[in-house]
């Protein structure tokens, strides 16, 4: 309920007796306040601060400078912040940076500003800039993105600066979009997104329920085409910058198994929302119902069991199309090993072939697996092996190869 947050905000921002006396009347903005003046429409959302144009511009400038400093701090740590602190002339901003550098608990930030005399001396309406920076510092201490801090800080200036803040965000952070290595965790979700099998409404709803972190985790293993499609459905350009950053973070932070789990969770959510989406949710949905799970287990085990040099030799000798069909009978962990073993250029060819491939039958999958197993055996066999002597293989490897090759 927003009432609780409003209670806290009233207690903090307006404090006791801090309510301006003329509340209730939608008074016209004072001359020179943002959005007022000749030829400009009246401020759609007058604030209690009733700032003049110069003061409002100064507050907005502080929010921008703080956001940029926060961005540098996130990238370069306290040393970068110390540079900004040294160069900063304004006491309030300098103090804000020092509070961030001190890494104090967010709950103590307001008290720190009060102790330093930046709030509590004048009427609440006079302390807009300090409130803006308190909001920014609290978010910085929670490791928030500078865009989040910018939006939270500029809320004190009303909606009249909303568009200006957005333009500034896009100008300074817009180039953060895209980039980064594409990572593809094969599964039902990317296929479903690319195939437009779920309605935009269902995807949008599932994304809101899932929250940004789960959405980022599930998109982190999807091809660029699928990511761009989802972002176009659920985000404005500002939101896309934020989510793109989260996606890159998820790729660095999470294992492929966790990304695969996130995809499954999102699929399950999509299917529970229903609509005209037709996802195959849950663990059962990971594979088509008729797929031979023991074959998948054997092929995956073989990929994971082989030493790197041997695996690389075998994979290099095989056609990308065969590797793509083999990947249809493999668990995510084995996908990872296969793709990380071959050269990036070749890995793209395999993924392209995988994208174009149609789902294979169990017989076709078995044939691909057997071709692969035979190639492994050929590499394992010593070139000068005396005829008639059995090949010496580790027991586990022998068992997997036998299991694959003995299938009919």
């Amino acid at each position, binding site marked *: 309920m927003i009432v*609780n947050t409003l209670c806290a*905000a*009233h207690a903090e921002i307006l404090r006791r007796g801090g*309510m301006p006396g003329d509340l209730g009347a939608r008074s016209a903005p004072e001359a020179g306040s943002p959005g007022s003046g000749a030829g400009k429409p009246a401020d759609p959302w007058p604030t209690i601060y009733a700032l003049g144009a110069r003061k409002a511009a100064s507050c907005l400038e502080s929010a921008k400078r703080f956001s940029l400093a926060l961005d540098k701090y996130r990238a370069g740590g306290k040393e970068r912040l110390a540079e900004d602190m040294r160069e900063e002339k304004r006491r309030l901003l300098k103090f804000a940076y020092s509070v961030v550098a001190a890494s104090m608990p967010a709950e103590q930030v307001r008290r720190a500003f009060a102790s330093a005399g930046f709030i509590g001396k004048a009427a609440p309406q006079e302390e807009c800039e300090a409130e803006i920076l308190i909001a920014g510092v609290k978010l910085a201490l929670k490791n928030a993105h500078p865009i989040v801090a910018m939006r939270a800080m500029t809320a004190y200036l*009303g909606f009249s600066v909303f568009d200006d803040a957005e333009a500034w965000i896009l100008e300074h952070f817009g180039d953060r979009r895209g980039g980064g290595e594409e990572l593809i965790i094969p599964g039902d979700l990317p296929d479903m997104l690319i195939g437009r099998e779920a309605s935009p409404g269902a995807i949008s709803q599932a994304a809101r329920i899932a929250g940004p972190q789960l959405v980022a985790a599930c998109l982190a293993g999807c091809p660029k085409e699928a990511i761009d499609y989802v972002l176009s459905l*659920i985000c404005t350009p500002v939101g896309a910058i934020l989510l793109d950053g989260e996606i890159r973070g998820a790729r660095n932070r999470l294992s492929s198994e966790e990304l695969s789990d996130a995809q499954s969770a999102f699929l399950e959510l999509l299917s529970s929302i229903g609509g005209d989406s037709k996802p195959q949710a849950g663990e059962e949905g990971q594979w088509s119902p008729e797929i031979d799970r023991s074959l998948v287990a054997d092929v995956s085990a073989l990929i994971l069991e082989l030493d790197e040099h041997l695996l690389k030799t075998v994979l290099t000798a095989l056609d990308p199309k065969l590797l793509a069909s083999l990947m249809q009978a493999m668990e995510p962990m084995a996908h990872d090993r296969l793709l990380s073993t071959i050269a990036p250029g070749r890995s793209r060819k395999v993924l392209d072939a995988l994208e174009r491939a149609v789902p294979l039958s169990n017989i076709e999958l078995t044939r691909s697996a057997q071709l692969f197993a035979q190639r492994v055996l050929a590499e394992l066999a010593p070139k000068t092996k005396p005829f008639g002597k059995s090949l010496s293989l580790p027991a586990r490897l022998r068992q997997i190869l036998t299991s694959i090759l003995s299938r009919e």
Partner: protein
Amino acid sequence: MILWNAELTKRLTCSEREKAALPSLVHDLLALSDKARGEGVKALLEATAGEGPMLSYGCRLIAEGYSEEVLEEILAVYLTTSTLAGLEFLKQCVCAEALLGIAAGDSRDLLLRKLAPYCGADKATSLLRALDAASGENGL
């Protein structure tokens, strides 16, 4: 637990007669949430483009994808620092509550249960009875 603040209570105060305008606002907000569920958040941006600042900018904040906690903080700052009071302030609080529900992907029923109390005890009860009756008709 629901907190209480004297200043906020004073600011939200309006007459029962004024509150009579709220059920229709709640219906409009429920329609908006239906649109979000059916057509996605981008459709919301178009639908609210000509609406008041809280709804139109609020929907843009939803589409920027902030966490619920951050979105709630931002909306609370807009409300607290506004010059609004009385019915107009109460209406904007209801809009903010609806925006949070839409952002969280709340179902229509849940959203109604969150918004109805703003209409006052009697109207909230009748809104919820209507909801229960509709659920019964639908075999829910």
